[in-house]
């Protein structure tokens, strides 16, 4: 399974997003309220467990973490 699909599956399942919501890859997870402050910790733990990457303090920015698209790009850059 490609990284984007893994990320999407995690977001949809862990944050119980019904298929009918049609969450776009570019939707902001924080602004839509799907992910809250503790939920962001769950996202980071998922990335570290699944992709064996370490998320540094200075990488915790919306450009890396706030949408399925951004997360996927961030993981690709880290693993690449």
């Amino acid at each position: 399974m490609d990284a984007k699909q893994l990320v999407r599956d995690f977001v949809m399942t862990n944050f119980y997003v019904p298929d009918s919501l049609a969450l776009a890859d570019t939707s902001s997870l924080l602004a839509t309220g799907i992910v809250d402050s503790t939920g962001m910790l769950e996202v980071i733990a998922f990335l570290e467990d699944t992709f064996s990457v370490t998320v540094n303090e200075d990488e915790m920015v919306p450009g890396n973490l706030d949408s399925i698209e951004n997360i996927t790009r961030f993981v690709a850059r880290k693993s690449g």
Partner: protein
Amino acid sequence: MCGIAGIVALQESAPAPDRDLLVRMAGSLRHRGPDEFGIFRDRRAGLAHARLSIIDVATGQQPMASEDEGLWLVFNGEIFNYVELRAELVALGHRFRTQSDTEVLIHAYQQWSDGCFERFNGQWAIALWSRADRRLVLCRDRYGVRPLHYVEHAGSVRFASEIKALFADPGVPRALDSEGLAQAFTFWSPLAPRSAFAGVREVEPGHVRTYQDGRVTDRAWWTPRYEPDAGLRTAGDAADAVQAALANATSLRMLRADVPVGSYLSGGLDSSLIAALGREVVGSRFQTFSVTFEDAEFDESGHQRAVVERLGTEHHAIRISGRDIADVFPQVVAHAERPLLRTAPAPMFLLSKLVHEHGIKVVLTGEGADEMFAGYDIFREGRVRRFWARQPQSLVRPRLLERLYPYLARSPVSRSALAREFFGRDLDQAGRPGFAHGPRWSTTSTLQRLFEPSRAAAAERYDPVAELLESLPSGFPTWTPLAQDQYLECRTLMSPYLLSAQGDRMLMAHSVEGRFPFLDRDVIGLANALPDAAKLAGLDEKHVLKQVARAYLPASVVDRPKQAYRSPDAAAFFSRGEPAWVADVTSPAAIAGAGVFDPKAIAQLLGKCRTRAQAGPTSNSDNMAVVGILSTQMLHRLFVEANPAGTALPELRTSVERS
């Protein structure tokens, strides 16, 4: 304190109110008033009453009539200034037969008609039937301490303290209401006039609703005003005035009772101050009651002990585990009669049981202080976000949020770039009503994604926030941002949730009456006339109240950081064994039967909670989602599948029939 109910025909052709139905309605409210039952009935109207005897125990029976029997009344609550009103009415020529506050109400209505309500200092739900002009009057106190629901059905209006009494007639439809659910999954409760049930309404706080010859009127007899009083400008003036008003409000609530009055004591500033003021009134034996938690995260027993030691009260505490909460939660929902997004009402349910077991019928509480004197984080958050909005690119200003939420320092969201996403939404709309509450409402309403498609579509068409903001009082735009936030907090959280779901309903579940000195008429007026700086000085919340409290309480209690009252939420249901009812109300059949939630999303959420039960903190969203689902499913089970009214026919102390 009591339960009231009744039926009034809206058309000449409608049948006379059914006697057995009235008695069943009263019987379904037995927990509110187990001491005596009474009904009145004529061709058009029936009134029913379940009484908890507190004032004039011997002769205060209800329904009560005027001397000429032209007026009949049932009443739940207290008019604390009834002694003063009685003297005023005697001077105007009125003659009294009893010492009860109920009779004062009747004469006050005869003298001043609907103008009587603004003279009352108290907490009430009243139903008054005027036989002469065939007029029904339904009224609630300023902030809706006492509940009053109604439904118009089959040519009549039926009203009652609780919804279950309306369902005593099996002909009244019982279904969950999409708009009420959308409100609950935004504000934490449906807001009057809506309820969680289709067709069931609630008289709004501070409103009077009348029915007469086919005409219905509904108007606010009271609306809060926030207009600073120039006489309260100095800190000393404000503190003196608040001290005097609170002492008087507490004393009225201690002395206007023919039974002993106790006090809740959370260990926080508000209830500790009220207990201290109450202690001064009685001088002798004074009982206080607390909740303590097994889980240290929620427990405040150290602070409770410090206050008890200082005040010398006879103290009782009940220690509560997560499992206790899970076990009583179905009963909690049965009394709350709405979806819940927090378990916090459950410990209050257990606490009123403890009070009842000690023979106490009336307790003071500190409820209302955080709304009147700006104690909540949301007021501070609103102030920080407005300050930030003036320099939206600032990296320093959002970091002020860490002073409000210490947990943020441990969270990636403390990083200013993420904080901007999380707290910085709509910074360009800082001047709009609801700006401070926006993040809370949108975080909660995001959970509506759990609704199944047709409910979600209904929720999509209905915007509870827009409806609220379209119904603001005319003075609202002239108030300061803090006053606007206080108003919205009172209307959306205090009245429907804190005073009702977590207040009246949990107290009355065990026949205990709560009294709220911070919601005294004169305290409200004074608090709303204070300059903002007396309430929220910089980011120091309840500033003036702390000044007052120093004379009464240990410094450790006055100066401690505010701890929001909370209890274990998702963890209560999953971390130490799961009560059987949880799987039962969330089975695929039960989810499909209730028709509220999406089965797959529910399975994902519950699966996550069950596997993560021991694995660290549960997010705020997950906590709200779990409690919201379990309570809504239980509500459907108890109120829609089953009929909550019961069929008991209590023995009547008063039964009056007129043609």
